[in-house]
C-alpha cells in the first residue's frame, strides 16, 4: 500500500484525531499510535503536525485536555491528556457523514469506466 502523507491528510486529520479519541482519552503520542495502527502502517505523518491540529480542536471545543498529574516514572515533562467533548462527538458524527458522502461521490466518478 502506498504511503499517505501530510498533503493527502489535509482536511481530514482533525476528524481522524476525533475518531482516535473516541476509543478513550489519550496523550499526543498515543493518538499517533492509534492513527498509525488504524492506518495499517500506510499513514506517514510528521509527528509535530499533530499538535497544531490538537490545539485547533481544543480551541473549537471539540476536545478538552488536562495535564497528567505526575510523570509516572517517566523522565521529563508532563503530558497533556486529551478527551472528546460532547461537541466533539457530534463533530465526529458529522465528519463521518461528510466523509461517506465524499467517498460515494468521488468513488462513483472514479469507478465509472471511460
Amino acid at each position, binding site marked *: 500500500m502506498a504511503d499517505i502523507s501530510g498533503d493527502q491528510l489535509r482536511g481530514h486529520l482533525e476528524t481522524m484525531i476525533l475518531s482516535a479519541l473516541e476509543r478513550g482519552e489519550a*496523550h*499526543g*503520542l498515543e493518538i499517533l499510535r492509534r492513527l498509525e495502527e488504524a492506518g495499517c502502517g500506510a499513514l506517514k505523518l*510528521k*509527528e*509535530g*503536525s499533530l*499538535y*497544531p*491540529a490538537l*490545539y*485547533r480542536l481544543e*480551541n473549537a471545543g471539540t476536545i478538552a485536555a488536562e495535564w497528567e498529574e505526575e510523570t509516572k516514572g*517517566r*523522565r*521529563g*515533562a*508532563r*503530558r*497533556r491528556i486529551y478527551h472528546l467533548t460532547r461537541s466533539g462527538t457530534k463533530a465526529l458524527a458529522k465528519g463521518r457523514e461528510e466523509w461517506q458522502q465524499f467517498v460515494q461521490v468521488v468513488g462513483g466518478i472514479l469507478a465509472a469506466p471511460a
Partner: protein
Amino acid sequence: MNEATLTQLKVLVERAVRPLQASSQRKQEMREELLAHLTAVFEEEAKTGDEAAALARTTQRFGDPVELAYTLEQAVPATDALTRWSENLIFAPGKSTFTRACRGAVAVLLATGAFLLLALFDCGRPSEWSPTMLQFCGAILAGMATMAIAFHVLLDLIRRVLFESNRRSKLKLAAICIGGDLLYAGAILLPSLVLEESIRWSLLPAAIVFGAAMLALMFYLAPSANRRLQQFREWAVLPVDQGMRIHG
C-alpha cells in the same frame, strides 16, 4: 538520556515555539507538551539503537520545526494578542526593570492622558482651560507615572527578596512595604498639593490603604513573575536562530 541530548530536544521545541506570537503561558505549555512528546519518542528509538541514531530518528519523526511554527501560529487564538500585550507590559522577562518601568509608565501616561483630555474637552475649548486645571492634570500624570514606575521597581524588589535571596529578609520586606506605601500615598496626595497649595491630609488614610492594596497585588504577582523569569532563563539560553519571526 544525557543533558546534551535533552538540550538538543529542547532546541528543536524552541525552534517551533519561540517565534509564536502567543501568550507566554500558552508557549510554555506548548514547550512542555512537545518536549514530553520528543523525550518519549527518543526513549522509544533509543531502545533499538545508539543515542545519536535515536536523536536523528526523533528529529526526522518530529518534522521541520520552522514548518511546525507556521502551523502552530495558525492555532493560536486571536485573544492571545491582548494577553501577550499585557504580559509584555507587566512581566516582559527578557527586559530590564528600567525598561519595563518605562514601558509601564508610557502606557499609563497614554491611558490617563487620553482620559484627562476627554475631561478637559468636556469643560470647554482649549482656550478656556485654566492654568490651574492644566497644573492639576500635570500633577495627576506625574503621580500616575510615579505609581507605574514604582510598581515595576517594587515588584522586582519583592520578587528578589522572596525568591533570590538566600534567606527571606523580613527587614528588607518591611522596608519595601513601608517605602512603597509612602510612595503611593505621596503620588495620591500630589494633585491636591498642586490644586490647593497644601496637602489635603484627609486623603491620607485612603492613600495609605491604596498603597497597601498595590503592595498586596505585587506580593500576589511576585510568584508568577518569578516563574516566568525562571522559564525565560531556562529556554532563552538555547541556541536557536533569533532571526526567525512569524507575523500573522
